[in-house]
């Protein structure tokens, strides 16, 4: 169960201020970012600011796994990364955040073992070996060796190798027969070289070695580096041959060529997993797998395993809305098409006997009642996850929407507020309001920001089922929220979702998370222009695909910021 401390802050003006943070101020181009000569550091022609990032973002474990599949054309992942030392994500939204990815001694040992296992596997299987050793290599042993190193190395390192590199790797290759006497000399050399390739920093990191610095402290990435940025953003894996060919031909150096490849990647079947992964991680749907227990009185048939299906429902909702129907933020917040198992159908008040054909995992497509539901916030998983044993978890629902949908930062409750117990008022809303609402110590955050969003979901019980009464009293799900553009009122979750769907704050928030995901790093203040660019398109109705396309065809993909001497 998520342990998010909910949020009361102290009863002070400072606390009120602390409750109202948003994405940091944007200094704007040409302000604090000017060089001594007045040129704008990191500025691009389009107005986007290039933000400092790592030259060596390490492959995440998922990226390692996918890259191995693609590099060796495997039928399926090896699963070896499951035993890798874990990365401390520290609450970051996505597993590809460069700040969390380092190589400790434990992980280094894991990489070493995995490299040896993969090398053994590939060279021990003639079919796999044939995939990495073309049949048209020269017959002369030395030429054959160098040709193999050159062509395999280009794929493993995701760029051409230098002649020096080929020579050095050839030295390791030539020792292969002494290490693997039972293999033919060439295969022995391949095996030893594979062990090296998979441990080299040029494989483990998506190294950006380009070094020519422009007046604005910008470094133009090479085509190969751009190709890697694109493929890891969309596929979480290495470039395919077509993308490599585009890089080699210089096609990615033109906007037309870049757009063509981005469109191809986004249209690919593999991209479906990206959209699933983004939303799954952003909304922490993995928590659905471990639903807390529900009241045996109210939910005698409750089985925690339903949480796994709820996660499956969300996956299908996202795929259908974003991938199949080209939906955007509005559709994610308002669509009523979802996919249910018979058990989930009952939560929605749908007779399982009326369900249509099911997919292989037992999910059938349904249309939810427009008077009750609209968008992912009204789906079973979110509501059940943010539900106590017997009641809606009003506070946690409100916190989630603040943090994950609106990007409204919130403070934390004072320690003395811990363990506060609800009173005996008639309804859940009344109990929550009595403890944290206006006139209480929690008014600043709860009263203004958290509770109003949470109340919108009072029509949904602890398992996400719809209800019109609470303890015999008609449910009141109405509230008002102070958006940046002004307070907006709503009568229930459907109306709230519609309000959120039109909110510039929400479109900006969603765009911010896509920048974080697409660039694999924490968003900084100087990213605001880029976020605004994507948010404007989203507000105008762009699909999620188009939002990602805008990011991947922007100058943020083509440049990196040179490192300031004081940062070295």
């Amino acid at each position, binding site marked *: 169960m998520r342990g*998010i*401390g909910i949020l009361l802050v102290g009863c002070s003006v400072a606390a009120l201020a602390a409750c109202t943070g948003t994405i940091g101020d944007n200094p704007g181009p040409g302000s604090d970012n000017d060089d001594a000569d007045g040129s704008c550091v990191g500025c691009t022609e389009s107005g986007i600011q290039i933000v400092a990032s790592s030259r060596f973002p390490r492959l995440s474990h998922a990226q390692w796994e996918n890259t191995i599949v693609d590099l060796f054309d495997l039928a399926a992942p090896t699963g070896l990364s499951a*035993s890798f030392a874990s990365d401390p994500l*520290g609450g970051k939204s996505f597993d590809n955040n460069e700040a969390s990815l380092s190589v*400790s001694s434990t992980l280094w040992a894991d990489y070493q*073992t995995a490299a040896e296992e993969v090398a053994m596997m590939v060279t021990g299987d003639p079919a796999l070996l044939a995939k990495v050793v073309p049949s048209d290599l020269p017959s002369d042993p030395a030429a054959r060796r160098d040709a193999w190193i050159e062509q395999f190395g280009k794929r493993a390192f995701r760029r051409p190798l230098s002649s020096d590199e080929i020579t050095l790797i050839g030295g390791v290759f030539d020792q292969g027969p002494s290490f693997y006497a039972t293999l033919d000399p060439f295969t022995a050399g391949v095996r030893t070289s594979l062990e090296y390739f998979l441990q080299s*920093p040029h494989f483990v990191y998506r190294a950006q070695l380009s070094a020519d610095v422009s007046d604005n402290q910008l470094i133009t990435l090479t085509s190969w580096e751009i190709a890697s940025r694109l493929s890891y953003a969309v596929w979480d894996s290495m470039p395919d041959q077509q993308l490599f060919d585009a890089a080699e031909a210089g096609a990615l150096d033109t906007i037309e060529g870049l757009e063509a490849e981005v469109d191809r990647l986004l249209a690919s079947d593999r991209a479906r997993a990206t959209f699933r992964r983004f939303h799954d991680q952003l909304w922490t749907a993995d928590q659905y797998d471990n639903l807390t227990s529900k009241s045996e009185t109210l939910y005698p048939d409750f089985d925690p395993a339903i949480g796994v299906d709820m996660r499956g429902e969300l996956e299908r909702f996202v795929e259908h809305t974003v991938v199949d129907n080209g939906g955007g933020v509005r559709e994610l917040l308002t669509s009523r098409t979802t996919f249910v198992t018979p058990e989930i159908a009952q939560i929605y008040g749908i007779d399982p006997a009326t369900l249509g054909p099911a997919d292989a995992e037992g999910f059938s497509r349904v249309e939810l009642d427009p008077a009750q539901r609209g968008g992912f916030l009204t789906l079973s998983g979110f509501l059940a996850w943010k539900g106590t044993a017997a009641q809606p978890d009003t*506070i946690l629902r409100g916190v989630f929407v603040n943090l994950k949908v609106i990007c409204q930062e919130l403070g934390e409750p004072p320690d003395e507020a811990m363990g506060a117990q609800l009173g005996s008022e008639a309804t859940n809303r009344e109990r929550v309001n009595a403890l944290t609402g206006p006139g209480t110590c929690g008014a600043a955050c709860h009263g203004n920001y958290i509770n109003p969003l949470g109340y919108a979901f009072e029509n949904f019980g602890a398992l996400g089922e719809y209800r019109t009464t609470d303890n015999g009293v008609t449910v009141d799900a109405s509230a008002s929220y102070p958006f940046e553009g002004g307070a907006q009122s709503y009568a229930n979750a459907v109306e709230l979702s519609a309000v959120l769907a039109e909110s510039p704050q929400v479109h900006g928030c969603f765009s911010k998370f896509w920048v974080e995901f697409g660039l694999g790093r924490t968003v900084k203040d100087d990213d605001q222009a880029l976020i605004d660019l994507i948010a404007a398109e989203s507000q105008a109705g762009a699909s999620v695909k188009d939002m990602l396309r805008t990011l991947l065809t922007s100058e943020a993909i083509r440049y990196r910021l040179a490192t300031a001497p004081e940062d070295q």
Partner: protein
Amino acid sequence: MKRSLSPLAGRHAPSRRRFLRGLGGVAMALPFLESLGPKKPARAAEGDAPPFAIFVRQGNGVAQATFDGEPERFWPSFGPGTPLTTANLSAETDRSLSELADHASKLIFVRGCNFGFPGNGCGHSGGGNQVLTAARVSDNPSGNLSLSEGESIDNRIVRELGQTGDEPLTLYAGRKYGYLDEVLSYRGAHDLRGAEQSPYNVYMDLFGLSTVDPEELEAIRLRRQSVNDLVRSDMQSLLGRTDLSKFDRDRLQLHFDSIRDLENGIICGLSDGEVATLEQIQANVGNDDFIEDVIRLHFDVLALAMACGAVRSATLQIGSGNDGTQYMVDGVKQKSFHKISHRIDSDGDMGPPIPDADILHSKIDRKLLGLFKHLLDKLASYPMPSGSLLDCGVAVFTNDLSNKWHSYDNVPFILAGSCLGALQTGVYVDAGDIAHNKILSTIGAAVGCKNGNGDPLDDFGDSSLPTGRVDAIVTPGF
């Protein structure tokens, strides 16, 4: 298109032993056996094991007396200053620390230790940031994302007493939630170390080649050295660039320092049955129902690691940053420990009360102390010239909070072991409301760390905190 798993994968992480078998190791089936009990290392070092420290962290505070009337259920009823004996500790049947009575003469109870700094928006995170670092909590990030502004004591021990590139063992038992997981071990400011959930992975990383015969081992060593040399060359080329950011340079340096050649040293290992036990739990390392088994197995591997001198410090974090584990108590799977510690059925600050939550909290304290006893039993089972492995180092049971109120005052430090006589054992002391950096300095000094003057470590933690050690537990002359 969904990808299915290859033959190499499965529900469990693939076994590295598969690789060893492929090298010519014995490819026999490994039957599941009960642990055969402690095994001496296959080729044990002569003399005592080098001093070490193992830090075990429980979350959510302990059920000690609170200002709102909850009674004392943790500390003994007899006061500080009373020598600890098996008899007097066993008699404390209503106090959790009685679980450790068998080892009374080796124990050191220290109360009166306080964290030096407030949290920054999340009591659990702020406590976790400080418990082994005695450093400030970051201003940014804040809340559950807050980080420590300094290294942890386990890192200091290995950095000072280990070899270049050595890292402490950083272990974790329980599920990771993605909200507040690892909290304990820091390489430096903001540099949180990831923790390993699987005792099998820990064992294989340390001792995976223990069953390979010497000739094969030498062949592996030569091959790996050849590969390592070229990888090192790649790394040095990158580190030689003048246009690296500090972030990149530090990361690359960490990687470079991690590259190790295989050493033809003394090899230790567990029995095949014990290793099979480790392997069998792989699939359930994040499952609440198996957390107690995982903890015991982590302790088994830790004890072996210390006996073999494989590492000088280690941490085991039990549960996430606010431990939501649903422990079994009295045969019943309870609500999340985090909720029990709040006394309400909510992870937040309000909710319906949990009946007898204070008693449940105490029972969980007992359970975890009982598991800590398993570690002490294991350490005591390895004979050493000075007594046992337990006498060579110190095992520490502590918490990132003191009680249900997320307080940072009177955080318990329960030690066992003397570090070869550096610490006085069988004592119960009240340190007197000190900043807890002193207890960390005391432990670091006992293991062998020095301050800048070459004297026993006494200035660990933030520089604003008073220096010194807890003299009441330091053996005169050490």
